[in-house]
Structures are given as structure tokens and as C-alpha cells.
């Protein structure tokens, strides 16, 4: 498991047209990695994530993505993702094809991927229009034991999953602590797994039942302090809720958005530069 600079990790493992899951459920969202993807101007990505949030809004608005698989696409606690809306409603800067699940379905899809099985099953939720959406991948099957209708959900197996985590130890084992979302399932479902971490430590010192990704399931890692900002890394820094509120205004307008991205993402060499430009790090 090599330790690379984030620039090198993205350049090596994230290719145009790849399916990429930057997972994280509110916590530990790999913002730094997503913004490096923007800097390197990746195109035609199939983005995957249960809760595409600001960093997906940024990637979509900067034209990196042509497809999105998701279950809830909003600014948590705030409202819409305006760049996502603009892409879907008006095709700017390019059209975005949607494949949508419910949270529970997408969790099953990741679990199936992580388990090496082509699909997972769950009881069908009560009737809705979701079943007749063009991009839906869920199919009704019958339980061979009870004849009950079940939903079969095809496995999700991203080309690359990217996570942010707290620590990596000297052997390359990665610790994730706090709210974990579907990070583990997305990690183990992927063909390749990139991880950014807050810091490297000699030994993790965590409990034996902690969530650890062994070094040999990690394709490459990068040390990126603050790499989840404005999301958070439990034990390191809190969520910048004010930034999430501010983003609603920034992203509402194409020009303001483009100017913000130009200055804070394209105009800085790396994530530390962005943190400094925002006055979050000295």
C-alpha cells in the first residue's frame, strides 16, 4: 500500500469515464480528493454516492460528471444542490444522467458489491413512482420460500472508492471512527480503494472492535490534514455548518459559483492552499 501525494493518487487511479464513489455520510466526506479531481479536470465520471453533497455539486458544476447514482442529493439541513439542479434541469455545464435508489436500496447495493454477489434482496417498500423511473435498477422478484415480493438490487462495484479517515498506522492500516455511513461497504465493493487521512501514527491504539481497513485492502493512501473540510473528522475538527449555509448562496448563481471555484480550488495548488484561502487554516 503506497503512500502518495493526493495529486499523484488521483492522477494514477482516477481516469476519465471511471465510476467513482467518494463516500461519507455527512462525516468524513473526502472533499480534498474531490477538489483534486476538479483540479485535474477529469471528465465523464460516473459519480456514485448515497448523499452527493457540496463536493459533488462542485464536481458536477465544473463538468467532471456525466452520470450520478445516488439516493438523496441535497445540501443537508439547508436545501438544494444548485449545481446538481442546473445540470439536471438545464444541462449546464453538461447533462447529467441520474440513477436513483432509496437509502436502504443503495445500502443493499453496496453490501452486495462488498460481498461479491451480483445482487441483494430486501422487502419491497410500499408502492411509489420510483419503480417506473427510467434509471431505476431495482427489480421485483419472488421469495422462493414465502412467495412474498422482494426487491432485488444490483451490486454496486465502483472502479474506485475514495474515503477520508482519521489515521493510518506504520503498517498502512486505516482507522475510521464516528459516523461511518456506508463507508466500509463502499470501500470493499470497489475495484480500487483510495484513502486520505488526517495523519499517520505509529500504532492506531484503537479498540479491537474498531472499524479498520487492513493495509492490504487499500490501494493507495495520502496524508491530507483537514481533508474532509467543510465536512468533519471526528476527534480532529467539527463540521463547518456555516460554510454549508453559505454554499447555498455561492452555488445558486453560475457566475458566482465559477468565480468561487476559480479562486478557491483551481487557483490554489492543493487542499492546504484552499484551507488557507478560506481562512480556516493559518
Amino acid at each position, binding site marked *: 500500500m503506497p503512500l502518495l501525494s493526493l495529486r499523484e493518487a488521483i492522477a494514477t487511479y482516477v481516469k476519465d469515464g471511471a465510476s467513482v464513489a467518494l463516500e461519507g455520510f455527512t462525516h468524513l466526506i473526502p472533499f480534498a480528493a474531490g477538489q483534486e479531481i476538479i483540479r485535474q479536470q477529469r471528465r465523464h465520471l460516473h459519480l456514485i454516492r448515497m448523499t452527493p453533497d457540496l463536493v459533488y455539486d462542485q464536481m458536477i458544476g465544473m463538468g467532471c460528471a456525466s452520470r450520478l447514482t445516488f439516493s438523496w442529493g441535497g445540501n443537508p439541513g439547508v436545501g438544494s444542490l444548485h449545481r446538481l439542479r442546473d445540470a439536471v434541469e438545464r444541462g449546464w455545464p453538461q447533462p447529467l444522467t441520474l440513477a436513483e*435508489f*432509496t437509502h436502504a436500496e443503495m445500502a443493499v447495493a453496496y453490501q452486495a458489491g462488498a460481498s461479491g454477489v451480483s445482487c441483494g434482496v430486501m422487502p419491497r417498500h410500499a408502492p411509489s*413512482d420510483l419503480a417506473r423511473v427510467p434509471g431505476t435498477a431495482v427489480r421485483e422478484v419472488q421469495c422462493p420460500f414465502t412467495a412474498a415480493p422482494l426487491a432485488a438490487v444490483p451490486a454496486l462495484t465502483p472502479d474506485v472508492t475514495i474515503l477520508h479517515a482519521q489515521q493510518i498506522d506504520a503498517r498502512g492500516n486505516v482507522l475510521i471512527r464516528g*459516523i461511518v455511513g456506508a463507508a466500509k461497504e463502499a470501500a470493499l465493493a470497489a475495484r480500487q480503494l483510495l484513502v486520505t487521512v488526517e495523519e499517520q501514527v505509529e500504532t492506531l491504539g484503537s479498540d479491537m472492535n474498531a472499524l479498520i481497513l487492513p493495509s492490504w485492502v487499500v490501494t493507495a493512501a495520502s496524508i491530507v490534514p483537514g481533508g474532509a473540510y467543510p465536512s468533519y473528522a471526528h476527534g480532529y475538527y467539527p463540521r463547518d455548518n*456555516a460554510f454549508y449555509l453559505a454554499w447555498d448562496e455561492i452555488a445558486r448563481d453560475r457566475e458566482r459559483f465559477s468565480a468561487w471555484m476559480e479562486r478557491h480550488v483551481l487557483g490554489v495548488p492543493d487542499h492546504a492552499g484552499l484551507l488557507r484561502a478560506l481562512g480556516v487554516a493559518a
Partner: protein
Amino acid sequence: MSEPGYSRDEIMTVTAARQLRNGAVCFVGIGLPSAACNLARLTHAPDLVLIYESGTVGTRPVVLPLSIGDGELAETATCIVPLPEIFAHYLQRGRIDVGFLGAAQLDRFGNLNSTVIGDYAHPQVRLPGAGGAPEIATYAREVLVVMKQTPRSFVARLDFCTSCGYLEGRGVRRTFGPPGAGPQAVITDFGVLRPNPDTEELELASVYPGVTADAARAATGWPLNVTRTLAVVPPPEPRELEVLRDLHARTGAAHARPVHIKLPS
């Protein structure tokens, strides 16, 4: 009439909180439902179990989260479980008493739209989407909907049905066999709607002090029925308002605190 000593948001929150019995297990949504659940926990229902879909079980936040997964929720939880387990082991397995839902549109049978306004393929407004709602609507023993009532949100016909209420009413939902009973109350900024026991159509069951049935009707996109004995919701008690305002004040202060990250030199 003099202004009441509370806002519409406050009486909505207090009214939602009062629906929750002590000891119930709640699947909490963000925003007003989160405020209502924590208000209930800090007043009449100290043993309310709050579950947020981020996997935080039995959480007791001191300040309200902005997102469903703020660190505050993790720090005060009994435990954190991976997201797939929250949906499979808790919700789907039938362990949730009360689920909260909101939406952009609601129809007279409590069906909800949080997917699109307009045509799915060419939407006027692309909404965030389903999230956990279809499963909450299916599995929670009881659903509480919290929504502001306007003719654009309380509509005669949904543009898209994301989460099932009573479908076309008169028992149709039950024929599909979902474990949950469906929406038991819709708490709006006018009062509370409840399903008619026979037709399952939502009816105005109670209004806030000073609110008329006609005002509620005018804010509804279908001809809203009113129960024979329209009740008036008791106004928020001083204690309820005090606890709620303290909660919001603490929350505001916490969310305004700037974040500083120390980079290695």
C-alpha cells in the same frame, strides 16, 4: 386580536413534540422534526429513543444538528451503527415506532413527493430525492408528517409519488401489506390533519389558537374536509417555549463558531 407570544414554527414544533409518548423509538428527520423530538425528550418524554439515519442510536444532543450526521449526534449516542444496519436491523426489522417525514408535495391521502416538480424526465425543479423516506413510510409503525401548508405543497395531485401514504384511501394501502400504519398526523403551520377512519382522506382535526378552518382551506390545493368537532390546539406552555428557545439559542451559538484547522508546519 393581539399577537400570540410564540411563532407559527414554535407552535408547530410544540405540537409535533406532544405527539410523542415517552419511551417511543423515533426515526428523526432533520429540521423541525429534530427540534420537536429533542423538545419532547427535554420535557415530557425523557426516555424517547432518537435514531438519526446516520446510524446514531439513542442520541441525546445538547444542540440541534444542522445535518443528519453532525458530530454532536455521535458523541451523545448510545451507539453508532453502520448505515446499512440502521435501515435493515432497525427500520426494516420493525423496531421503529414513529417516523418523521416532510416533502415538497403532499396529497389528500398523505402520499408524498420529494423527487421532482414537473415531469420526471424534464423537471421544473429537481428535488433531493427519496433518501430514507419510502422505507420510513413503509415500516415505521406510525408516521408524522411535518410540512407548511400552501396550495403549492398541499396539492390535488402529486407530480411524483416518492413515499406512500394511504394511496387512494379506503384501505388500499393495507392490501399491499406494509407493516406500518401510515401517516397518523400531518402537522402544519395551521393545525393538525388526521386521516378519516373510513376514507383515509386527511381532514383538518385541530387548528392553532386564532386560526380558522377557512384559512386552512385556502392554504390547501384540494377541498379540505374538517372534522365535525374541530379542536383548538392548546397554546405552547411557558416551559415548552423556554426549553425550545434555549435549544435554538444553544444551537445558533454552536453553529456560528468558526472552524479552525491546524496544519502541520
